[in-house]
Every structure is written in structure tokens, then in C-alpha cells.
């Protein structure tokens, strides 16, 4: 059935629900829309995809013996590079920091503007949008696509379907390929992939990422948001009456009904029940049912509705981006009020600032040298023949610079102990050892501490190893224990 707006009757997924315990897939045919939010969505999509595809190609001079890629997670060598930042495995807590920032940022933005992450920036949304654009180019818009799917098999149908899946696979391969580049030197890996010289691992991951992109963005689409993604299930906990969300002004729209040109609007709502909002929705819901978990907040229904309102010479914004509070205010004719600063947004932003400050501070002040001290567990201590007590330690010096560095190892807080570094027995008399660590490596040394019997103080005595880099006099202290009988 085609209505006066030239579209087949749209049914939301709710209306098409099956009675069985298991639901058949209700295919969603989103209609092409034009408008502010659609333009915003295209812009965001282009910017994000641009960043995604270009970032691995940015070069960054790090000097000799280091990769020139600005963004690189180098698994084999256990380093991660982000512009001027170089992360070592034991600094993986920066990842925790980034995840924390991401989570709090997401919560913060959601409390202010609803599900803008879902609607505009989530990779699932971005790639699905791109795939739908391809689909629309090849198979036509909503009504045409629905008819096309119902049409009997023919060679032209087969050609079009093949073309669509072909283009999807190409995009998926480009997406999967770009992901590989974040983990390998981009120019090298591209040449290797194209010439068949890349490792089986690279081809495996290439195939995996291509397949997931193709399946998730091409086939699964809204199913990911509705059934797989945990985020919609608790995002409403971040909403309050001052959160900007996609809403339907039911006070103005209801009672809805078809409208004939020239008739009066008296005694009825502005909603003409054209179902353009349903037709435009990428998750196939009816926004007029209110806030629901399937709504990704992409605001395409607003664009669709505004177009109809424009044609009917009615004020736009029957579906609009607004807060619950203002919805009520509008209904009662009260002035609108926007509250961006609320207790929850203050807490979220303070959290954001704190985490970001801690991260920046720790990145700015982190040392280029570090030591790990491992006290021997077996035996905890050894009694030597003259009665003195010896403890063994494994010391790892982490040199995070690009040059070989020389260090001075000393200790403090352990009285008359004698320190010996295995292989450097000469230095024992001074209790200071001169050690070296090659560029960008971890050097391991065995160290023995001997305390004369009569000077051992109890079972456990705390003391520090002190490592000083000779050139810069950068000093690191690490506390450890000396164990006695």
C-alpha cells in the first residue's frame, strides 16, 4: 500500500513482532532523508573515516632504531607509539587510564546530549551508515528496495545483489586492512599483503576483520544495537529530565490521524501519521512510542518529520531534540530552560578532569629509567660459613631511551651490608656498582647483599636500592627487604 507521501506503509518492529518465543528477523529498510542531522551525520562519518584511514600513514621521526609511524602498536617488540608518547608493557596502566577516560567521557556526553555516541560516532553506526548508502545507490531507496527484495529472481536482481555485496566486501577489506596497519608498519604491510609476502597471521587477521565488518555492518546492523550491545541496556541510567534526547511532542501531535489538504487543524494533533519517522529509522522503531532502548539517538526521524511539517506549513520540531523538562514546559506554554550544569554533569566533568590531569602529569614526569627488584624466594636467606646472612636479588634495569646508558647502583638503609653484583665482583669494596643497559632494553643483574651476623636486625629489614643514571643523574629508588633468621 502506497500512501499520499509516495511511500509504502511503514510498520515499526514492535508492530511486526512475532508471537513465537523466537523472533524472525524483521528487515529494516531505512528511507533516505535530508536535513540538518543527516548533514551532521555525513560530516561526522567523513571525519571519522578520514581519521581511521589516514592515521596509520602519518610518519613520525623517532630517531634511529625506532619505527617512524605516529600511531603504532608494536606487538612483537612490545611497544606502543602514540605521537611523542612511547608506552612500555609495564606502563599498561595508561591503557586503563584511557579506558577510564573513554568511559567517563561517554557517560558525561550521554548525560548532556543523550546517545550521541550511538547515533553518530559508534563504529557500528558509521559503517552501517556507509553500507546503507552503498545499498541505496545500487538498489534504490526504501520502497524500491522493498519491491526489489520481493521481486522474483532475475539476472538483473542477481547482478545488483552481487554488485552490492562486492562493494561491501571491498569496503570491509579496506576497513580490516586499515586495522592491520595500526599494528604493523603501514607501507610495508600493504606491500607485503599485495605481493603475497605477509605472514599467515596478518592474512588471518585481515580476513577476520574483513569478515566481521562485512557481517556486522552489512547483515547484523540494528541487531547489534538491539541484541548484542550492552550499552543501550543501562544508558538510560545517565538520563535525567535535562538530558537532550530525541523526543516526540505528543501534546502537540496527538490525536494523530491522516489529514486532507484544506481541512482545519482544530481538534486534532499535528501528527499526520505519515510514518516517515518510522521509515527513516535505521533501527526500525516508532519514536512516538517514547524513549526506548532501540533508539540510537541519530535524529534522522527529526529530519524526516521536519520535511513533512514544512510541506504542511506547520511549525517544525514535532519530533525534536530536546529535554524532558522542556517537553513539559512547551506543553504548558512555559519558557524553555536548559540546564547543562547539574550535579551529575559536575561530578562527571570533575572525574574527567581528575583522570586526565593524573594521566598528563604522570606522562610528563615519567622517568626514562626504572628498576624492578625481585627478592629471591628460595631461599629467602642463606647463612654463610662465617655466620653472615646473604640475600639474593634480581634487578632489572629498564632503559627507555635510544642510547646505551651507564648507571650507578647503590643502596641505602641497610647499615654495614656488602653488595656484590654477580660478574662485577671488583666493585664490592665500594658498595657501588657501575652497570650498563643497552638502548631500549631491559638489563638483568643478580645482586647479593651480605650483612654480618651480629648486625642483622630481625626477620625483615626494609631498605632501598638506588639507581642513578650517570649522564642525567636521574635517580630511581625501589624499596625491598632484607630477610634474616
Amino acid at each position, binding site marked *: 500500500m502506497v500512501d499520499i507521501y509516495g511511500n509504502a506503509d511503514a510498520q515499526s518492529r514492535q508492530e511486526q513482532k512475532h*508471537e513465537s*518465543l523466537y523472533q524472525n*528477523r524483521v528487515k529494516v529498510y531505512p528511507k533516505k532523508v535530508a536535513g540538518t542531522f543527516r548533514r551532521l551525520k555525513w560530516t561526522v562519518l567523513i571525519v571519522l573515516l578520514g581519521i581511521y584511514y589516514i592515521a596509520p600513514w602519518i610518519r613520525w621521526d623517532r630517531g634511529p632504531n625506532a619505527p617512524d609511524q605516529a600511531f603504532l602498536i608494536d606487538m612483537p617488540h612490545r611497544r606502543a607509539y602514540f605521537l611523542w608518547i612511547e608506552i612500555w608493557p609495564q606502563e599498561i596502566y595508561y591503557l586503563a587510564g584511557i579506558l577510564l577516560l573513554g568511559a567517563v567521557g561517554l557517560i558525561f556526553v550521554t548525560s548532556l546530549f543523550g546517545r550521541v555516541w550511538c547515533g553518530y560516532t559508534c563504529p557500528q553506526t558509521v559503517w552501517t551508515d556507509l553500507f546503507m548508502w552503498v545499498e541505496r545507490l545500487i538498489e534504490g531507496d526504501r520502497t524500491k528496495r522493498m519491491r526489489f527484495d520481493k521481486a522474483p529472481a532475475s539476472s538483473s536482481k542477481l547482478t545488483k545483489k552481487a554488485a552490492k555485496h562486492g562493494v561491501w566486501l571491498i569496503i570491509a577489506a579496506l576497513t580490516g586492512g586499515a586495522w592491520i596497519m595500526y599494528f604493523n608498519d603501514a607501507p610495508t604491510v600493504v606491500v607485503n599483503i599485495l605481493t603475497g609476502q605477509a605472514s599467515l597471521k596478518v592474512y588471518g587477521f585481515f580476513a577476520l576483520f574483513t569478515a566481521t565488518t562485512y557481517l556486522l555492518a552489512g547483515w547484523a546492523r540494528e541487531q547489534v544495537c538491539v541484541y548484542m550491545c550492552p550499552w543501550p541496556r543501562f544508558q538510560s541510567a545517565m538520563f535525567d529530565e535535562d538530558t537532550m534526547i530525541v523526543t516526540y511532542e505528543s501534546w502537540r501531535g496527538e490525536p494523530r490521524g491522516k489529514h486532507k489538504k484544506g481541512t482545519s487543524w482544530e481538534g486534532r494533533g499535528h501528527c499526520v501519521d505519515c510514518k516517515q519517522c518510522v521509515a527513516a529509522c535505521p533501527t526500525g522503531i516508532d519514536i512516538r512510542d517514547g524513549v526506548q532502548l532501540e533508539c540510537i539517538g541519530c535524529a534522522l526521524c527529526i529530519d524526516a518529520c521536519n520535511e513533512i511539517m514544512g510541506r504542511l506549513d506547520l511549525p517544525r520540531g514535532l519530533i525534536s531534540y530536546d529535554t524532558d523538562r522542556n517537553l513539559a514546559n512547551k506543553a504548558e506554554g512555559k519558557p524553555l530552560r536548559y540546564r547543562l550544569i547539574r550535579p551529575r554533569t559536575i561530578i562527571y566533568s570533575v572525574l574527567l578532569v581528575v583522570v586526565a590531569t593524573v594521566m598528563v602529569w604522570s606522562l610528563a614526569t615519567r622517568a626514562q629509567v626504572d628498576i624492578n627488584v625481585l627478592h629471591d*624466594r*628460595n*631461599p629467602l636467606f*642463606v*647463612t654463610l660459613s662465617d655466620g653472615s646472612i*646473604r640475600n639474593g636479588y634480581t634487578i632489572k634495569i629498564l632503559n627507555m631511551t635510544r642510547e646505551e646508558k651507564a648507571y650507578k647502583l647503590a643502596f641505602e638503609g641497610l647499615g654495614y651490608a656488602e653488595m656484590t653484583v654477580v660478574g662485577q665482583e671488583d666493585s664490592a669494596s665500594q658498595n657501588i656498582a657501575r652497570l650498563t643497559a643497552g638502548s631500549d632494553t631491559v638489563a638483568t643483574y643478580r645482586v647479593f647483599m651480605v650483612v654480618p*651476623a651480629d648486625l642483622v636486625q630481625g626477620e625483615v629489614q626494609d631498605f632501598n636500592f638506588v639507581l642513578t643514571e650517570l649522564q642525567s643523574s636521574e635517580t630511581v629508588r625501589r624499596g625491598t627487604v632484607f630477610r634474616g633468621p
Partner: protein
Amino acid sequence: MPTKIEKDAVTGQDTTGHEWDGIKELNNPLPKWWLYILWATVIWSIGYYFWSSPIPGVEGFQEPARERLEQTMATAREQQSVFLEKIAAAQLEEIRDDPELLNFAMAGGGSAFADNCAPCHGQGGAGAPGFPTLADDAWIWGGTLEAIHETILHGVRTDDIQSRYSEMMAFGDGILDRSQVSDVADYVLSLSGQSVDRDAAARGEVLFEENCVACHAEGGVGDMEQGAPALNNQVWLYGGTKADIEAQIWRPQHGVMPGWVDRLDPETIKMLTVYVHTLGGGQ
């Protein structure tokens, strides 16, 4: 089984027909593809079980896993063989001085030690009463690479003709009386610098010269040739109190260590030697 499917008045949604104490369950159907994936994983797991794990007692189904294990071990052995050949050809000192071989020997010796030696000598050679500490600087049969190698090969007090062998007399068998043993113990304690009854120690010194010097040497410095421990240090195998020492003189205990020449291959024994030598007390 669902009995009465009806529409819920509030939500307008179907119920599943299940009802518990008046509460009706709404039907929020799971997608079919989800169900299919569940079945696919179930089917996969059945196949995967047969592929991956043996079924006890069922001939044939043990083979895949066992074959894979054997392959893995064969590969590992092949990779190790390069080093093992070098170790077989090298002198002990050469192994110690070559960083690459030392690294391999430390790993191989360490795991052999954990398997064979740690039950008595403790992890890392920590030792226990009656079982010498291998990480200190006191040695009964010598702490050089050669001496350690010899001890591991043939053991201590075994039937092996080349075994380390020493036995201390039981002085309680009518040679010394209780008070004499006490005096000797006082003297032995004084050797390691502990405060004792001087008169008793002086009497003990005379007895020591007569009975003990032949093995433990003048001043109790010990004799590694005979496996007589040094008595003038702070390391005590059977305990360092006066009672411990008296007990050891009266009726000595003698530890036994098996020889490993027939149980471990020569390369492993070499690696063990180097490993023990590097525990901290090697001479």
C-alpha cells in the same frame, strides 16, 4: 508449556503464557539467529571435544591429543638438540663462561633440579636439616664444578663403587662417655666462636685431638677429601645447638644422596652442575 497467550494490558505486548503467582511473563522474543548460533556452538563443541581431548579408556580417541603432545615434544627436543650437543662437547668451565650455553644450562639445570633435587635440597638449594644448603659457601665434598659434578654423578654413600663415602664413628658405642661427649661438644662450639664453658672446652680439645682431628683436621677446618664437614663455621647440617652436636657425636646420622649417573643423561647432569654452582656458593 505455554497455556494461555494473551496481550498484556499495560504494554500491549504478548505474554509467553507462563504465569507464576499471578505474575505473567512478557514475551520479548530472542532473535532466531541467536538461537541458531547457540545450536551451532553446541554442535561445534561436540566435534571439538573429540578433536581436542582424549576419552579415557577408548582406544583411538586417545591418539590425536597424544600424537600432538609427542609432536610438540619432538619439536622441542629437536630445537634443544643444538644446545645439548654443544653441552655434551663442552667442558664445565666452557659452559659457565659462554653466556648462551650458560643461559640454556641454567634453564635446563633449573628444571632438572626442581624435578630431582628440590624435594631434599629445597627450591633454589635452600636446604633443610640433614640436607645441605647448596646456596651457601660451605661444602662437604667440595664446591668446584668438578667436585659438584662428581657428587651428582655418583651420589653420597650409595652402592656405587665411585660414590662419595664417609662414615663417622658412633662415639657413644663405648669410646667416650656422656661427659666426654659434652666436653667435645663445648670445644666444637668454641671453634665457631660461641661462648662456652672454658674448662670443659679445654678438656674437649684434648679429646678432639685424640679422636676427631684425623678427619675434621686441626682446628675443625674439615677435609673435603674425606667429606668431613668443617666445624669452625656457622653452617650446621644437623643443627648447631649443643644438644644437636652431642647427638651427632654420640650416634651420628649419615645422609644418603643417590647417584644420578644411571638416571639422568650426561648433558642434564652437566647442566645441573652449572646450575648448582651458580646458586651462590660455587668455588
